[in-house]
């Protein structure tokens, strides 16, 4: 055996698995399809606005030609462009009338560099949802199974937040919270008076507001309130694979990383019911080679992992490895975005703030919590923030000369934005498959994605839009506008669900420890394992599931069961 363990992918899930396995003494290989990235040295986070290429703007022709889909991501700019694939080089197909935004980057650290850093626990409202309303299959775990792992990953990652005591949004191991600004405080006060079941809190985020000795030992420092996070952070102040899990894994001396290696397929040994080898194509030379290990973790992101399993067909698994259930590739979910509202407020003109806070406010789910509450199942949460506009408003306002200069010296009116994140139900026909007719430059079939929003999602969106506008109006806002229209699925970059966990091998791919029901040494801990989407941003749950599965696999290796 070359290694004890192979981890495919180095993003949030892969980084966590590698760290835990290495710390358990296992020789671990990470296989990353993208290029190597040097933490700190490869970031442009110390460039001022006038030093950033084209003041942050990606050339219009290049944007249209190479980044038509990736550039729809809010974090895409000329200083962060290196973290997105070129759509022109990495195509996928969808039905013409059913777009799906597959937003991603191929490099060491994956999307842990560009994630929104919002960190929320799921609760038993989420883990029990499928069983309660009959959509999808039951999660094989409950909150109590994951709670100690949430504790573990929060302490290591460093999560800033405020304790709220809500059953639908469990509290965690928090570093000190960042404060709400003047208008957010006023909005919180009014909303909580009007609606006792609604809570406005500061966004929980993976930023070091007060680093612990463990964080400092990894070379991480406190958040400097710059809000250039999407470029990468030279202070290591927010959690990423590069700032946190990979350095911790390296410290053990057990980690090997291979970059520019695209996994082509997993070989399956039917006699032993195990993965016997991981076959890769060198992205630069086209050379084929393979690696062997006692256990294999797929953490290649939801669609990437699904693609690898679908490509790993064999006599025994003609529809894709570990796919006896036919659940592989199905039940694709995201969170529905492009909903909510914004408005301006006439007050607080003599108040302002200092610094650039890297998180906003959070309004946890309140519909269908204590009681059934509308003609839909599940729910939505709001993220948002409040700010005073600056010089950029001048382009759309009449006026110039000395008058324009004088006007723009002062900040504009206060504004507040509420962005809804609605749950998506698991539906079998929302599906990732292989396009057998078209190949990529390495000869691998293109991914085909066919995914739509359903009636329940539309009802959730309608309610979220109505509630957002009503809360703003009640808090004295003016010029209230809807955030619509709904974005295509994928736009939230929370794609998940295509290799779901479940109790029954006939209807799910993975068991309660993220282990393939049918292949003992194969684990999957990225978003593809998700049985339902919940309303929370999912990355923290991927971290907890990854750490838990890695330690379970280490236990099984120690006991000789795999």
């Amino acid at each position, binding site marked *: 055996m070359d290694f004890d363990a192979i981890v495919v992918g180095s993003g949030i899930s892969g980084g966590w698995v590698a760290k835990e396995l290495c710390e358990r003494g296992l020789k671990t290989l990470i296989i990353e399809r993208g290029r190597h990235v040097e933490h700190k040295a490869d970031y442009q986070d110390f460039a001022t606005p006038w030093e950033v290429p084209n003041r942050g703007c990606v050339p219009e022709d290049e944007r249209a030609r190479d980044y038509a889909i990736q550039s729809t991501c809010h974090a895409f700019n000329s200083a962060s462009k290196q973290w997105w694939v070129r759509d022109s080089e990495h195509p996928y197909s969808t039905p013409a009338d059913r777009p799906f935004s597959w937003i991603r980057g191929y490099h060491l650290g994956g999307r842990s560099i560009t994630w929104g850093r919002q960190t929320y626990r799921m609760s038993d409202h989420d883990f029990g949802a499928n069983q309660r309303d009959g959509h999808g299959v039951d999660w094989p775990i409950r909150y109590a199974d994951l709670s100690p792992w949430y504790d573990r990953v929060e302490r290591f990652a460093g999560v800033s937040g405020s304790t709220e005591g809500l059953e639908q949004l469990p509290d965690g191991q928090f570093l000190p919270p960042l404060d709400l600004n003047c208008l957010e405080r006023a909005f919180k006060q009014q909303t909580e008076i009007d609606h006792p079941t609604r809570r406005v809190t500061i966004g929980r985020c993976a930023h070091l507001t007060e680093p612990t000795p463990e964080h400092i030992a990894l070379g991480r420092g406190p958040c400097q309130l710059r809000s250039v996070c999407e470029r990468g952070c030279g202070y290591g102040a927010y959690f990423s694979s590069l700032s946190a899990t990979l350095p911790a894994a390296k410290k053990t001396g057990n980690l090997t990383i291979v970059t520019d290696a695209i996994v082509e397929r997993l070989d399956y040994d039917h006699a032993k019911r195990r993965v016997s080898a991981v076959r890769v194509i060198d992205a630069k030379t086209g050379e084929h080679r393979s690696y062997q290990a006692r256990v294999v973790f797929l953490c290649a992101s939801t669609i990437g992992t699904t693609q690898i399993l679908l490509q790993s067909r064999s006599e025994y698994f003609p529809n894709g490895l570990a796919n006896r259930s036919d659940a592989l590739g199905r039940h694709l979910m995201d969170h529905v975005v492009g909903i909510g509202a914004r408005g301006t407020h006439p007050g607080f003109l003599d108040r302002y703030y*200092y610094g650039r806070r890297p998180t906003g406010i959070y309004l946890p789910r309140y519909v269908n919590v204590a009681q059934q509450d509308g003609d839909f199942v599940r729910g939505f949460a709001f993220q948002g923030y409040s700010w005073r506009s600056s010089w950029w408003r*001048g382009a759309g306002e009449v006026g110039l000369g000395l008058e324009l200069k004088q006007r723009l010296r002062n900040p504009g009116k206060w504004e507040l934005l509420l962005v809804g994140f609605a749950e998506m139900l698991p539906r079998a026909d929302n599906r990732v498959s292989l396009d057998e007719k078209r190949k990529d430059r390495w000869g691998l079939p293109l991914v085909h994605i066919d995914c739509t929003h359903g009636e329940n999602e539309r009802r959730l969106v309608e309610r979220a839009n109505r509630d957002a506008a009503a809360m703003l109006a009640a808090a004295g806002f003016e010029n209230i506008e809807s955030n619509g229209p709904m974005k295509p699925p994928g736009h939230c970059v929370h794609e998940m669900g295509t290799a779901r966990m479940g109790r029954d091998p006939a209807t799910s791919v993975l068991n309660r420890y993220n282990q393939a029901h049918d292949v003992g040494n194969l684990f999957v801990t990225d978003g593809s394992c998700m049985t339902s989407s919940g309303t929370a941003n999912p990355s923290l749950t991927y971290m907890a599931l990854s750490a838990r599965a890695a330690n379970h696999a280490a236990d099984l290796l120690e006991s000789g069961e795999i």
Partner: protein
Amino acid sequence: MSTGEHGKLNRRALLLGAVFLAGGAAALTRFARQSSASADSGPVFSPDQFALLEQVADTMIPASDTPGALDAGVPEFLREMLANWGSRESHAQVLAVLDGIEKQAWSRFGAAFLALPGERRLEVMRNVDADALARQDPGYGKFKWLLLVGYYQSEVGATQELRYELVPGAWRACLPLAEVGRASAV
């Protein structure tokens, strides 16, 4: 944080300090002018168009108690943006806006924009501005946005006209505007 980054920050701070000691904004302006003087106006603007652009930018954002668009190198910025960023459509839109301003000068005052005194230039631009924004003309919107980006995201605009800190280092959530002073540049 590694010492390398401290080094980088310190070098930047030293460089800025040296420039300000040598005469503040005037030194920065001279530097900007010198560096642009050597570049030709290229295929983007003819010399006449560039001269018009300079006076339009100066009218839009004049020098006052703080430096203006010319001091911040806004015309040179637009030239660079059209060379490095703008599509063919954006080129055409910007040239059409300049053309429209020149036409307005002739129809209103019977002279070239460059031949008009300052207050008449202002009147021409006010007309163009109000009319184009009322029509939500996308070309004019882009042109005005480019001028504002060029100014407020320049070093002069961000740090002298507005407020900018590379590393704020703290979050103060709610305080009197008077304590902060001016709007944040980012």
